[in-house]
């Protein structure tokens, strides 16, 4: 995305957050693109709202939950608004401070509602934590135009695996194993 376009989006996003979350303890707002943060996919933006919170893990979580309680509806409305943009935006709310004493920083991630959660008829969510090399593999597939998103690239890779002759044989064996297991 062009720098001027990104600057315009940043300004608009900051204005919207100010209007939609009046009085909220917002420390800062970040709009990140691909390359700024590993979570951002090519062609996607990550809009991050950072809430000011105490350093202590328990207090921090309480402050975050108080924010969620007060602005939960505003948060969902904002998400609906962002869905109208011509590109994908991940909306994320988190707190200041470093993850310490074993407690991770609280994060709310409101993903794009592509057709609403009811539209995924029969699909199963699978979450995988990936290292830099695996992410790069997915992103290469996106850049090359083979896949439209990381999820799509994962599906493409699985289809390729299924096409291999060895996979057919592997599947026949695992079916046999399952079958034998049930006979014990």
């Amino acid at each position: 995305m062009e720098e001027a376009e990104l600057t315009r989006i940043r300004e608009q996003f900051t204005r919207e957050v100010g209007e939609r979350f009046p009085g909220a303890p917002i420390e800062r707002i970040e709009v990140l693109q691909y390359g700024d943060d590993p979570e951002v996919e090519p062609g996607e933006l990550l809009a991050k709202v950072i809430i000011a919170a105490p350093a202590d893990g328990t207090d921090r979580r309480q402050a975050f939950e108080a924010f969620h309680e007060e602005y939960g509806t505003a948060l969902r409305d904002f998400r609906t608004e962002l869905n109208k943009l011509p590109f994908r935006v991940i909306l994320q709310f988190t707190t200041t401070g470093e993850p310490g004493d074993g407690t991770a920083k609280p994060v709310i991630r409101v993903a794009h509602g592509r057709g609403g959660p009811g539209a995924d008829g029969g699909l199963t969510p699978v979450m995988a934590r990936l290292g830099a090399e695996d992410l790069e593999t997915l992103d290469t597939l996106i850049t090359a135009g083979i896949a439209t998103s990381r999820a799509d690239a994962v599906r493409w890779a699985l289809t390729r695996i299924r096409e291999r002759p060895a996979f057919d044989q592997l599947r026949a064996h695992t079916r046999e194993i399952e079958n034998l297991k049930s006979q014990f």
Partner: protein
Amino acid sequence: MEEAEFERIRDQFVRDVGERFPDAPISRIEVLEYGDDPEVEPGQLMARLVIDVPADPPERMRAFESFHRQYGEAFHDLRRELDRLAVPVLLQAVAGGEPPGPGGAIGPRLQLFGGGPGACGPGPDGGELTPVMARLSREDVATLDTLITAGVASSRADAVRWALARIRQRPAFEQLSAHAHEIESLRSQL
């Protein structure tokens, strides 16, 4: 998993929920294993609280959020309790009742992954990890599960990593990668 062990875990879970969620509007407690629900991986369990909420969408959301407010702490405690088990357990709280018609929202739901290494635990390289969520068809999920049953991967996440490593090994991928780098570099020069 053996039937006796499964029953022991289920009974313990039902007891824990009873103690930690007094008077909560829970209509059902489920402990599911592989085959019961597509979200459960081989070798994994899912513990689920079905919350009693009205059918009307805004009311539904409000009732679920009020459950979350009141029992959020207890839910996290329950998660820690499950982390002590040897088997990885996915913990979910879902809004009960029939989801409203086609296109209507299913849920809301709340999900806590295990703290220990498990389905979504640390990757092989121990470096910085990034979560990637993909909604997969039955065929794709079956592909991952075949890799687990065959002993090629230890979890669905691990099977995804394995598949990507195979893609990287193909000669065509190297060429593709070179082209993608070239595209990136040209784009920045435009």
